[in-house]
């Protein structure tokens, strides 16, 4: 071909400032900023210690686990409102199963896993094959799961089982070498099973999204479902599996939450689905689909955990300020997303074609 042009070389700068990453940078930047903001006044009362940092994860692991599945769902352009209810149902199944019926907690967890993943797959199937909007489908799923919770019991049930106690209290302390001996650092900092599950799921999430065909299909569906279909991608199967995977994440979130509070209550985790969506969105996942990174979600979770921590350190503020701050944060990020999308549209400009005559 004679009119061969050389393709515009992508400079490092354009690659780094790719709007897809800007949101992730913004999240990381804001996290550091707020961390610094807390470190200056509260540094001397322990805000900058490793303990405070690890507590971020210990206290928010169940959000994080759920946010991993949610990120995938959002990238496909969907949404899942049932995660809080499914996690709560998981807690109820474990609590009622072990405490009231005397079944081994592992069996209860297995059963919860089947229920949660099954519901996820079913919702995915309804969304894709019956063409019901995800919002409606998962809202129904939420009512269903919440309803079953209340059907099981309307009281809070404590979980008393040695295995649960062992799992809940199992911790890895951070150690340091002092006078030739390994001792716990002071103030003691630890991670527990919940944090480990979170990070394992995070790695699985990153692997699935970035290194597998399944992950590419998720992005493709979010970019353009119609195109994905015409390119012969298994759109239906992918969507069903994504909701199934999110069901799995909800159940794991429910298990970790049960370990965290050691009880099940039919009204626990109400509104958690919105917190989870917030984590993902703050982390740079576009609600319109097609864009999102697990690493962003990780920072989204940390950022969301940081605000209550700050309020605790302040000591004078009501915890409701946490909600307000989170709300403002979400608003800020959604605005940034719109601006980023708008400016990149403008930067690319529309292809102008000359007059055909």
């Amino acid at each position, binding site marked *: 071909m004679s*009119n061969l042009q050389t393709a*515009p070389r992508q400079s490092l700068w354009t690659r780094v400032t790719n709007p897809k990453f800007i949101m992730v940078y913004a999240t990381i930047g804001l996290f550091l900023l707020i961390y610094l903001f807390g470190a200056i006044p509260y540094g001397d009362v322990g805000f900058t210690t490793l303990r405070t940092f690890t507590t971020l994860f210990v206290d928010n692991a169940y959000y994080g686990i759920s946010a991993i599945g949610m990120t995938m769902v959002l990238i496909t352009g969907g949404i899942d409102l049932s995660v809080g209810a499914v996690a709560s149902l998981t807690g109820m199944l474990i609590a009622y199963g072990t405490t009231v019926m005397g079944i081994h907690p592992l069996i209860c967890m297995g059963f919860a896993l089947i229920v949660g993943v099954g519901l996820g797959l079913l919702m995915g199937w309804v969304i894709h094959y019956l063409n019901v909007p995800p919002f409606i489908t998962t809202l129904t799923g939420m009512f269903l799961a919440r309803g079953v919770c209340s059907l099981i019991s309307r009281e809070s049930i404590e979980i008393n089982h040695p295995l649960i106690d062992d799992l809940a209290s199992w911790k890895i302390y951070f150690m340091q070498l002092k006078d030739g001996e390994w001792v716990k650092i002071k103030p003691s900092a630890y991670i527990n099973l919940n944090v480990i599950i979170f990070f394992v799921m995070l790695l699985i999430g990153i692997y699935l999204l970035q290194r597998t065909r399944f992950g590419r299909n998720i*992005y493709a569906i979010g*970019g353009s479902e119609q195109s994905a279909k015409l*390119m012969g991608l298994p759109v239906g199967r992918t969507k069903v599996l994504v909701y199934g995977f999110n069901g799995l994440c909800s159940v794991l979130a429910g298990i970790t939450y049960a370990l965290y509070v050691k009880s099940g209550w039919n009204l626990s985790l109400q509104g958690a689905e919105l917190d989870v969506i917030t984590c993902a969105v703050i982390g740079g996942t576009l609600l319109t689909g097609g864009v999102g990174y697990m690493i962003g979600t990780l920072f989204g979770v940390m950022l969301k955990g940081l605000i209550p921590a700050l309020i605790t350190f302040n000591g004078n503020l009501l915890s409701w300020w946490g909600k307000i701050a989170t709300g403002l944060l979400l608003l800020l990020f959604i605005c940034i997303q719109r601006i980023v999308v708008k400016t990149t549209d403008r930067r690319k400009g529309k292809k102008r074609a000359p*007059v055909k*005559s």
Partner: protein
Amino acid sequence: MQNDAVLTMRGIDKQFPGTKALNKVDFTLRKGEIHALMGENGAGKSTLIKVLTGVHEKDGGSIWVEGVDGEAHIHSPQDAQNIGIATVYQEITLCPNLTVAENMFIGRTQGQRVHWKEYEKRATEILDNLGIPARAKQELSSCSLAVQQMVAIARAVDMNCKVLILDEPTSSLDDKEVEMLFGLMRDLKNRGVGIIFVTHFLEQVYEVSDRITVLRNGELVGEFAIEDLPQVELVAKMMGKDLNDLADLEQVGAKHEATGEVIYEAENLSSSESRAFDFNIHKGEVNGFTGLLGSGRSESVRAIFGADRVTGGKVKVKGQEVKISKPHEAMKAGIGYLPEDRKKDGIIADLSVRENIILAMQVMKGFFHPMSRSQMEAFADEYIKALSIKTASQETPVGSLSGGNQQKVILARWLLTHPDYLILDEPTRGIDVGTKLEIQKLVLKLANEENMSITFISSEIEEMLRTCSRLIVMRDRNIVGELTGDQLTQAQVMKTIAGGEQ
């Protein structure tokens, strides 16, 4: 079945509720040829393509594809791909958020793992081989439309396709990009790929095609070698009539000079998207904005209608100063606007033809004064007949009509409000020659017989020369000239656009 045929379709039937979309259509594609599939909107081109690609299932007939023993059974796009039929659609059907390489390989790799390096290497090879100016790691949305189109073709070619279907691939490309695309098409042809080329641009057909198959009303008109079918005859075959119509139009085109009262006048009008400009139109006048795409034509008329945020200027309607900052106010002042992008700004695809037609009328009346059902039906009926809108019934969703007919529905919507001044922005884009003529005629008829003032915008200069008595030429968002009378020639328009002396 001929020896060199890669694809043979015989006696294809397809029935849709209410219409026979295809009636015993034959089609043959030979190895290494570019075969244009021509026909007006609704002639059955799209249906034939969709049968071939497995989007629709045929009701009767047979398809043979080289390399497949016996008849080919195509039930899904996947089946079509597997036997070597690949399609590149008008709208880019790739994912803008993935890279070029990902778009080329997604959905056709083995195993669950993604091997980035390998795909990027292979993609680079293919892109170099075909001379496509894109980089494997580039995000697709950062490529121009032409390059995106070519990436789609590269994806198709790499799947070892024997039959490549290009459905209106050039409609959003500029001349240079079209040339690039044609270069690629010729290259593929020489490699033995059979290409089915569907387009509305007649010149383009003659530039690259070897053969033409013409369809009309779901039936085969014939298959011709390009040398045997002059352009004029092709148009006649597509329309099923002589070209007298074209001559008719020239006569109807006795455009009368604007003498009546000034119906609309703007002074220093500007909006968030357009620069300040002066403009006026007389009663019964047809004028037009011309200029390259992006020169501000559409933006200017959008400012007149208040479709963008108006930022300044004075507007007089019939000598009275009025404020128009919202479409609703423009409608109240007797202005109608048919937007450029009918899919985005115009039709409401899920509503019926009737509902779409009465929409503007209802807005004018206010929502607290509902129209009776029989009244709505009467209006809809009147305009379906008047504009000969091809639809199964009034209640058919507009989305299922062909592009030209959708355009007529929107036109009907505005005519029903009896505006004094109607703005038509690219009313003929993406529709076939016959309907284009009908719309041009209608424009002149409205101006001549009903004394309506009309602003007409089109990318085809000939079309504007035929209909407008005054052309306002824009360049880089400014009005750079106004042409009337003897100045209305293609050469003069081009010169003014290009910026030569008047």
